[in-house]
């Protein structure tokens, strides 16, 4: 029970820090919106092509933003040695992981929900009737992404060249997440095909469950100092 509270407090701390400094928000919001615009330029004028690319573009923007936000959530703590103090508090390391995970997941989910209408407008797609499933896809996809991103960001936080190292390490691991999320939201946006999306959503759920258990179990080997 106390550990659960610790998770919530650590998440609250990260989110509070973010709402006050807005460092990550400003960086990622404009960055991911620009990614959407640039990708739309790259794809060109073909309306059909744009619509098909909408879900892919959305997840590319989210993935870039997710890497920044995960790295930033450790960077803010490391700057004045707050992270070491966080580790000396009598809570399990897993609670630190889950707290940061919760904060990052919420951040990515809110960002995804904000980017969704932007994507639909820029890529000429319309909101499908099964839009709650689209939100569910966003939730499951960002959870899977945040699971890996927060885990690897903790691993690289103390290493040289961490900015370039984090994506190099984590992107091959999140390929199934991105693939499943892009396919599921693509099936919903382009065809409103819930049946096709359901298969991919099951893969997302499986990935999230396995990595939630695994990463929580071995996180303490990552951050010991």
């Amino acid at each position, binding site marked *: 029970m106390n550990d659960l509270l610790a998770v919530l407090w650590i998440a609250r701390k990260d989110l509070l820090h973010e709402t006050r400094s807005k460092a990550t928000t400003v960086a990622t919001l404009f960055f991911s919106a620009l990614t959407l615009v640039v990708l739309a330029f790259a794809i060109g004028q073909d309306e059909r092509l744009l619509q098909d690319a909408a879900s892919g573009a959305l997840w590319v923007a989210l993935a870039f933003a997710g890497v920044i936000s995960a790295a930033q959530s450790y960077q803010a703590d490391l700057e004045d040695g707050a992270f070491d103090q966080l580790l000396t508090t009598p809570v399990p390391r897993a609670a630190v992981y889950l707290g940061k995970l919760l904060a990052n997941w919420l951040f990515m989910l809110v960002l995804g929900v904000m980017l969704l209408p932007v994507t639909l407008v820029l890529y000429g797609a319309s909101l499908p009737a099964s839009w709650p499933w689209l939100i569910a896809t966003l939730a499951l996809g960002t959870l899977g992404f945040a699971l890996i991103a927060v885990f690897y960001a903790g*691993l690289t936080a103390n290493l040289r060249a961490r900015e370039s190292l984090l994506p*190099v390490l984590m992107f091959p691991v999140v390929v*199934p997440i991105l*693939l499943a999320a892009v396919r599921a939201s693509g099936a919903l946006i382009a065809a409103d095909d819930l049946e096709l999306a359901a298969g991919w959503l099951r*893969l997302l759920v499986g990935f999230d469950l396995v990595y939630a258990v695994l990463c929580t179990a*071995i996180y303490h*080997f*990552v951050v*010991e100092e």
Partner: protein
Amino acid sequence: MSDASERLRRPAWLRIWGAALVPLFLVGAWLGLVWSPPDVNQGNLIRIMYAHVSVAWIGFVAVALTAFFGALFLWRSRRRDDVLAVASAEMALLFSSLTIIGGMTYSRPTLNTFWTWDAKLTLTALMVALLVGYFIVRALIDDPVRRGRVSAVVAIVVATSLPFNYLAAEWFRTLHPSRAIALDGSGVTMAPEMLATLLFNTVVAGLVYGWFLVDRARLGRIEAQLETERAERELATPSAGGVVRV
């Protein structure tokens, strides 16, 4: 000096193992190139399969064993487990790179392309990327204990991601029938000579992997010992270490 060279000597059983690999490899090559019949559809091109599939299988075993040794290190914190994990990871990288090269050689004449987004190809390419990441992390951490722990964690995550990658890539393919190209089509209707040849070559590939694993681990233990001795010497004469390292 004699002590050092004594330490570097390969034990007799390991030398016999290594020497036995050469004729075994030649027998495997003979089985694949001469003894086994040509395929009905692919003709002589099927012979690439014996080298390609056996290497690919052992590559996956090597990744699984890397994660296994990594987990052992996390559990017992014994340096030799970390040394075995690295040895296995190096072989995994070698075997998966060979798998990609072999696969490209195989798919160019049979499928008329070097690369398709087939599940198995995608999986192997990702595996190479993941293994490279494993070595990058190792290179960046100096403290041996922390290096071992972090890389063990990476190895476990990598091994866990492979089934998901396979699943995702497989679905990705099957949902696009236009790209659906079954690379193997084997397994079901393989002639007994072909199966025997493939299994023999797989055993040889496994023995090659095992030999390099044991020998690399032997070198790794010497390496670890030297590293410890050097660290102790620097502790004994701090000024010398300070001057050299700055």
